[in-house]
């Protein structure tokens, strides 16, 4: 059960990172 929940949590985090277009380089360069 722990493994399934962990995997679902990681998939959700991956989805959130893709939706937010998370990238430190792009964030820093767009702030300049």
């Amino acid at each position: 059960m722990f493994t399934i929940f962990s995997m679902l949590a990681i998939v959700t985090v991956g989805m959130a990172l893709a939706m937010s277009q998370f990238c430190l380089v792009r964030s820093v360069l767009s702030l300049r």
Partner: protein
Amino acid sequence: MGLSFGIALTLLLLARWHGGETMPLYSPHLSVLLGGLVFGMAARANGGCFVGTINGLCQGEARRLFTVVGWVMGYALLRLPSLPAHRQSPLEVVLVLAALAALLLVLNRIAKRQQQSFRPNPAAPGLQGNLAWVLMLSTRTLVGLLHHSGLPWDPSSLAKGLGASLRGAPLRAITAYGLIVPLGMLVVHGLRRDWRPLAITPKDWLLLPWGMLMALGSAWGMGANDTYLFRYLPLGSLHAAVGLAAMVAGIAINPNDLLTGVAGQRAATKA
């Protein structure tokens, strides 16, 4: 910053409920400063950090494979330096929490003055309002819980595992957890149908040495942007604050400008 703040809050609650964190912290060191700078400059030349590169690959940018191979080769050729580690106290976590909260308040005040709405990622202007809040709150809680579980889920862990196996270390099955984040990204890009397949060009091989330099910077700095923001900063590790600042400075420096500058100086000297 919001993500790190939320993860720190989740970890603080878990520490109260579950008996505290057990992961090591590191003190700032010159190698961390150098590693952050090298990583930042290489990541800019590469066109993305660890997360951004994996996201680009999941969107169809095949040339990102060169960067990923560069990471694995970099980690295979380098060994992590052994900085002195220490266990953090609950006070350190509270300090980080307070510092992140203060920074967020300052940024919020600046945004209010400039009448800007809440946008967690300036590179994604469409992400704002309720969607932005839901994404940030859910991600930080889940990352906090995942961090507490100790699973190697972050994008750089798989490259580290593969690099270590090339050096002869046994490849553990748990390393496969690093494949699940790209799976989530593929789901999003599949649902959005926002693929942008790019054919590989001959000059794309240059991403390989930049990828290796990213691995080198991450090894010297005892972490990279994903591990700093999602793991060490929320834990109260000062090395992450120093490394992240150096990384941001490195990103602000364009390595191509430096190379052009050197070439220009040589030409001027010859003339």
